[in-house]
């Protein structure tokens, strides 16, 4: 089930909008700050210019210091059209020559040509104040005269606002462009995914060959995972198809035989022969049942090899239980059964069900085709390996046949399906172990299963919970 998560687009848009939003606020604040500086800088020049013009008009004549503020000074200040202007001129003794008497001179700016600019307030209006000094070199009253010019901030605020607005406009334009660029880039970046999707959708359902599209590095893992998945899927399907074909073939032959036996049985009138025919039918039916069981168990093994989760298993307990379950109540001959186990449990990680199935198949095989008088199951640990050996005193399998018998349906015997070894082989393969044979010796013929051993078990599960 695919849960519909938030769209990739909306996530990207959200993040970018957040970044741009915060960025705009920061940039806007910075722009306002700089715009104020710029506006102050621009209008301060006018302010100082006007103050200097007034200072220039200070003159000394016969011991009296006087001033004649030029109209041009006021015209300079009126360039900021709506601002109020306050000023005063002080002679070297601090007496007001002209202007607003109560205008505060920012500080006693004694003896400097450098204009002094500060913020202040006059008559309730926030103002910018410039103080300019002028050295009066009259012999009677030498010293520094001062000009204080104050102007309200309206034009500065308007200019600062204007500059900020324009800067913000640029920020917004850039943000918009970047936004569109990002959207475009995202769309472009996601295009390969659409291509993969289209490729998958347009495929024939039977087509499980790997995808062959040009993809960026970022989604290579995704596509290669898809490819691997399809590979496994196609492998399984091939396996199933082969299995079904084999199984069909295997069942068809005994069924045909059974049908002809039943035909014979219906035509037979002689009671003795009829009895004989009947027992043949019974044998055939039992064989068919076993074959079917084996086929199903093989199918199960194949299935479990893909899906079962491994757990820690005590191989000794598992083998013992399997042996007990596998030996039929009645045998047509006397066979010695032996179980040889070590004092300590032999642990491994694996799937109990399939291991049990593999072992019971081996035991069945040995009883059916091998063991004349003796069957022995040995479990032991050998370095890093957990080993099960199934030994019998039968004729064994010639070494030339060892490779072939691992494949399903190999046998030529009329009563066996030849699946037993194949099932065992599949299970061992699924556990990363190996299936071996040991040639017939005094000890007998041995089929050996070797698995990787687990040394310590944090949580022991007995394998004896078999059905």
């Amino acid at each position, binding site marked *: 089930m695919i849960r519909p998560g938030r769209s990739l687009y909306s996530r990207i848009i959200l993040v970018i909008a957040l970044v741009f939003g915060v960025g705009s606020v920061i940039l806007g604040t910075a722009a306002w700050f700089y715009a104020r500086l710029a506006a102050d800088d621009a209008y301060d020049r006018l302010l100082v210019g006007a103050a200097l013009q007034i200072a220039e008009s200070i003159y000394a004549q016969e011991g009296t210091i006087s*001033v*004649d*503020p030029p109209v041009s000074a*006021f015209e300079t200040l009126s360039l900021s059209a*709506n601002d109020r202007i306050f000023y005063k001129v002080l002679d070297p003794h601090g007496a007001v020559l*002209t*202007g607003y008497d109560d205008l505060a001179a920012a500080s006693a700016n004694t003896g400097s040509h450098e204009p002094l600019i500060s913020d202040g307030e006059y008559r309730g209006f926030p103002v910018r104040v410039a103080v300019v000094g002028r050295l009066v070199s009259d012999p009677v009253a030498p010293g520094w005269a001062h000009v204080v010019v104050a102007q309200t901030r309206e034009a500065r605020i308007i200019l600062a606002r204007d500059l900020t607005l324009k800067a913000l406009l640029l920020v917004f334009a850039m943000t918009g462009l970047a936004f569109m660029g990002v959207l475009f880039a995202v769309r472009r970046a996601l295009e390969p995914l659409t291509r993969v999707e289209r490729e998958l959708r347009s495929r024939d359902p039977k087509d499980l060959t790997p995808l062959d599209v040009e993809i960026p590095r970022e989604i290579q893992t995704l596509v290669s995972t898809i490819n691997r998945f399809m590979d496994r899927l196609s492998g399984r399907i091939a396996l199933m198809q082969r299995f079904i074909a084999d199984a069909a073939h295997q069942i068809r032959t005994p069924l045909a035989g059974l049908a002809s036996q039943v035909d014979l049985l219906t035509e037979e009138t002689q009671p003795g022969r009829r009895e004989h025919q009947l027992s043949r039918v019974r044998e055939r039916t039992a064989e068919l049942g076993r074959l079917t069981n084996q086929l199903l168990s093989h199918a199960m093994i194949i299935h479990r090899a893909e899906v079962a989760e491994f757990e820690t298993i005590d191989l000794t307990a598992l083998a013992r239980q399997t042996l007990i379950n596998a030996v039929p109540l009645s045998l047509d001959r006397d066979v010695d059964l032996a179980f040889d186990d070590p004092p300590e449990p032999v642990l491994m990680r694996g799937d109990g069900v399939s291991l049990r199935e593999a072992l019971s198949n081996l035991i069945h095989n040995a009883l059916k085709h091998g063991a004349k008088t003796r069957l022995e199951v040995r479990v032991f640990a050998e370095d890093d390996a957990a080993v099960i050996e199934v030994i019998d005193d039968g004729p064994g399998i010639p070494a030339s046949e060892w490779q072939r018998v691992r494949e399903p349906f190999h046998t030529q015997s009329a009563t066996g399906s030849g699946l037993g070894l194949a099932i065992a082989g599949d299970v061992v393969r699924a556990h990363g172990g190996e299936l071996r044979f040991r040639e017939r010796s005094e000890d007998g013929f041995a089929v050996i299963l070797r698995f990787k051993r687990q040394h310590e078990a944090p949580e022991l599960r007995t394998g004896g919970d078999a059905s």
Partner: protein
Amino acid sequence: MILAWKAALIIFAGLISLEISAAEAAEKTVFPAPGGQQTILSVHGATDLAAMEPLIRDFQGLSPTVTVEYNEYLTNDLFNRAASECDAKQGTMDLVLSSSADHLVKLVNDGCALNYRSVMTHRLPSWTRWRDEVFGFTFEPAVIVYNRDLVPPEDVRRTRAELIDLLRTKPEQYNGKIGSFDISQSGVGYLFASYDAHGTTTFGRLLEAFGRAGLVASCCTTDLVSDLASGRLAIGYNLIGSYAVGAARRGAHLAIVIPRDYTVVLSRAVFIPRFSRNPVSAFRFLDYLLSERGQKKSREASFFFSFEGTLPEEVDGPLWLASSGLLRPITIGPELLAVQDRAKRQRFLSEWRRSTHIEPEDR
């Protein structure tokens, strides 16, 4: 309670003292509301009642429930009164109008005015308004006026240089017969003179010529115009054109000349004090003054000149003054603060007295 009574008494006393000081300088005329009084609009102006009356009556035609009190002052008295009311943060003035635009600009600069924007104020040319607080509502050139009976047509001069020349060549004819503003008393006279002085070189020579010719200085345009009409003066310099035209229309035998070297143009200014008790009516009166109806009335009955339109027929000058290139308008703006500077004023007055030999009156 006692405290409140005391406070009330103090305020009352303050009001009375204001009333008394104003009563000395102002002449009060009441125009009762024709449609029954609901509010009172107290207009304080340095403008002739004769010029204001038609406008006030026309305004009352539009707003019949407003009683208008008109208080007439000399420009300097009006300025002092308005400044003291502004400092006291209370007042009796609802609307102030004056030909001395520099006074009003100073008051506005000091934060004494109310801000007002309307369609009417927005239509004004930029040189006749500042801060949306002070507005010019007239267009009045400074003119040279001649008595036709005393000055033959060939002696009517059209530039200042020619006028200086005339005074030099015919001293016996015009000595003691030339009049202008006493700029220490008249705000508008001072404003005109400082505009003459700023940026021209002829003004110094003109003053010297006036001094030699025994200039008669007077406080007010009306006095000068009536002296000219009666023949006590032959030539009047820098008179407000509208008053001269008014006198001519009333039958005075005057030649009114627009100076052809440059023409200083004044826009009579108006503002509404911050402590106006009836700003709503004041705004309405202001809008009326600036409206087409008010401007038409002003052109026909009060001030005769206008921003657009032609010169009155009595006036000798270019037909379309506004586009003639002679114009030096007195910009209503912070530049006028320079005119108001007290050091500059002292210096300028002493120069003027030295040149014209007129001693300051004890007032």
